[in-house]
């Protein structure tokens, strides 16, 4: 039987008082895709950081090729052929794509001479392999999120990795790109590369993974073999690990393992009856954001899902609506009133709310308390004379902590200390506090664990039920399909189609999102 490339035995790691890992064990065989799942805060990312040598474990042993390894550092991890694709791309915004790829691949010794033409050639080659049309000279900060992801993947490919760690690589990718990625992964697997794959999108796991290890509260709950169509010789020894009855292994079971409880229906039923016309946009355009001739309307209590590939202009549209990049043509009406939105401030005043895509940078302020974050958007309204009244603030915060079930000791806790799901709830609470008429949600459940996901979905429904108009951007087609009353699809800065929620299915929506080549939809099943 093939020996595991990598064996972790009861790894422990604490940050201050927090015990992130309480004894995690994991075996990684050559040529397998090994999914790693668990709720946020379960310790997935910490585990990754330990394998890449970014963190040192407090206890437990790491074995690579059966050799015990101590003091794994990023540098030595490279040497062992460990490469990583992080959730937030770990790139150098000011440097060219060429250099970003090069620095990751070259030995990190300061005394080497730099051969620019070699670097260039390699960059071109790798970018071709990941099928990215990116000019290698461009500075990375000029690239879009998915483009940056592709650069990261190119890096990993170039590293000729034997062990490839992927921490939510698809977080900001859409169907087409995901399929491309999976194709790449299968190719690597065939060459005996072992892949650790982290994702919150369970269907992806069933689609690509051979085995799945579930973490909960920093402990290994179990490792299961995934019964799936691909033949996998490499994984057969894995059978000895996984108990036979787990051969037929379902979403439900997996979720059960993750949360330790049954999550009934992921998507709450739509019990709301959409009301009168609330929000309408007439051929909105913004050159800077690459938006043109966008028209749609949302009725009170209606959820309009906004689908499309990343880069189709969905987030850009949201930013235009919210006045972050003001529109230069077209009109926005809310409750029959025409709005002049030239800054987020105007938008808030007018009764718009925007839950941004990048929670950590835009959604919340990590260093500030929950209370401060919640009242941030309504300071002026809450304290018209500009005098803070901390009692009022605290009370308000506590209400939302209760209503949204934010898990925390006190409203004074730094948001940065919360789990992703709870952070997202705080971000949402901030906007609910403004009592908006129109709520724009951008990837509301991105990087949020299954449990919290369900709660947030339920919440969105309630809000709609209360008569709020909701525009929900999501790259997770199931979410779009499950939540939306109607679905708008964007492509290249335009709205290409609007479906009735009932009449839409993955195929039609993707077709609209992709334009012609509508066969590329296997990403959603």
């Amino acid at each position, binding site marked *: 039987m093939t020996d595991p490339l990598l064996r972790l035995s009861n790894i422990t790691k604490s940050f*201050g008082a927090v015990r992130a890992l309480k004894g995690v064990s994991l075996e990684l065989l050559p040529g397998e895709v090994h999914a790693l799942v668990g709720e946020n805060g379960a310790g997935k990312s910490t585990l990754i950081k330990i394998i890449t040598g970014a963190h040192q474990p407090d206890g437990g042993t790491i074995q690579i090729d059966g050799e015990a390894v101590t003091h794994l550092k990023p540098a030595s991890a490279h040497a062992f052929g460990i490469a990583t694709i992080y959730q937030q791309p770990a790139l150098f915004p000011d440097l060219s794509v060429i250099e970003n790829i090069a620095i990751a691949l070259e030995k990190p010794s300061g005394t080497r001479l730099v051969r620019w033409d070699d670097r260039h050639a390699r960059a071109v080659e790798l970018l071709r392999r990941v099928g990215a049309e990116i000019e290698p000279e461009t500075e990375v900060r000029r690239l879009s999120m998915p483009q940056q992801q592709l650069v990261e993947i190119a890096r990993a490919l170039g590293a000729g990795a034997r062990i490839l760690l992927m921490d939510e690589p698809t977080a900001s990718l859409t169907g087409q790109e995901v399929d491309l990625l999976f194709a790449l992964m299968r190719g690597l697997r065939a060459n005996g590369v072992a892949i650790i794959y982290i994702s919150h999108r369970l269907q992806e796991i069933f689609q690509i993974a051979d085995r799945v290890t579930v973490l909960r509260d920093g402990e290994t709950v179990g490792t299961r073999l995934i019964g799936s169509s691909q033949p996998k010789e490499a994984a057969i020894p894995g059978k000895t690990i996984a108990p036979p009855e787990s051969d037929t292994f379902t979403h439900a079971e997996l979720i059960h393992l993750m949360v330790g409880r049954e999550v009934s229906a992921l998507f709450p039923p739509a019990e709301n009856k959409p009301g009168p016309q609330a929000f309408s946009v007439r051929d909105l355009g913004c050159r800077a954001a690459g938006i043109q001739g966008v028209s749609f309307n949302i009725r009170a209590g209606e959820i309009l899902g906004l689908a499309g590939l990343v880069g189709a202009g969905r987030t850009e549209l949201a930013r235009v609506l919210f006045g972050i990049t003001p529109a230069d043509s077209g009109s926005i009406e809310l409750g029959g009133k025409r709005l002049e939105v030239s800054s*987020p*401030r105007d938008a808030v005043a007018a009764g718009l709310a*925007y839950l941004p895509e990048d929670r950590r*940078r835009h959604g919340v302020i990590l*260093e500030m308390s929950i209370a401060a974050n919640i009242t941030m958007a309504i300071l002026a309204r809450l*304290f018209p004379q500009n*005098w803070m009244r901390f009692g009022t603030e605290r009370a308000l915060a506590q209400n939302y902590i209760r209503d949204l079930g934010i898990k925390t000791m006190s409203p004074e806790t730094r948001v940065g200390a919360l789990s992703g799901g709870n952070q997202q709830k705080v971000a949402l609470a901030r906007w609910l506090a403004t009592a908006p008429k129109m709520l724009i949600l951008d990837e509301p459940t991105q990087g949020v664990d299954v449990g919290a996901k369900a709660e947030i979905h339920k919440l969105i429904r309630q809000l709609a039920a209360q008569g709020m108009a909701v525009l929900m951007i999501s790259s997770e087609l199931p979410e779009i399909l499950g939540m939306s009353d109607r679905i708008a699809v964007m492509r290249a800065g335009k709205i290409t189609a609007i479906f009735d929620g009932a009449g839409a299915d993955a195929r039609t929506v993707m077709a609209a999102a992709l334009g012609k080549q509508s066969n590329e939809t296997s990403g959603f099943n």
Partner: protein
Amino acid sequence: MKHKEFFRFETMLVCVLGLEILIFNKTGTNFGTQGNMFEVLRLSTEIGLLALVMTPVIITGGIDLSVGSMLGLCAVVMGKLWRDAGMPPMLAAGCTLVLGAAGGGLNALLITRLNLPPLIVTLGSFSLFRGLAEALTRGVDNFTNFPKSYLFLGQGYLFGVVPAQLPIFAAVSVAIWLLVHRTTYGRSFRAIGFSPEGARYAGIPVRKRLALAYILSGFVSALAALVYVARVGQAKADAGTGYELLAITAVVLGGASIFGGTGSVHSTLLGVLALAVLKIGLTLSDQPGELAGILTGALLLAVLTVEAVARKVSARPLRHSSAVKGI
């Protein structure tokens, strides 16, 4: 947690200050006298004012290097308006304050409209303001013989004991304390300091708030200039040279993070006092002025080191990412 950190920092400062006082009480002639206590406050008024107003700026993650030069410029303008333009002192003072605010406005404009780093902008205006001051006076001009009524502001004593500028100092302290700790503005400053983008997405008028901080800084610098002129009894282009660094030192000594977000006005005041007491105490102990400089530097490093080590011990990782914002 933030509060805890502050608490630790303030305690440390208080101890330092207490220690200084005790030592100088022994070594210094007439140090522990009531007269000297007031003298300390009196002589630290200008720096104090600058440090006070530097605090909100640093909390927004910015910095204002131009305050010293602004003081010089305003001093000169005060003189010109009063002597050459023949304005009554009060009117001249008023105009000077307006000019100060305007100068701050220039900084604010460049920083907010062109998103230029404050360090650079104020480095430029640092030279510009000083340069204008010298140009206005051709360097040599020197305004003096201000009317007694005005000089009282800097040299007089209320009830024979309380220096006349003390009420101003106190008033500004309270005002800025309230601004930073008790108003939504202060809250916005912190938000901006921690994450300008986050603040913007939350609908906070980032540019307006930043502008406020820098305009205020210019305004209070002008006020400091008025006090300075009244105390020294003369206005010359080189007034307040190097004050900006002293002010920043005081603020940082007060535990404000140069990266923005954290910082408190009362700690800044502690910092100001610590420096002033050190300087005056040493002179009263017949020590040369250089020693004060050396100790200031050493003190700053010591306090920071202790704080950093303490943080390392309590295992809260340093914020690598934010290492830009400050500088």
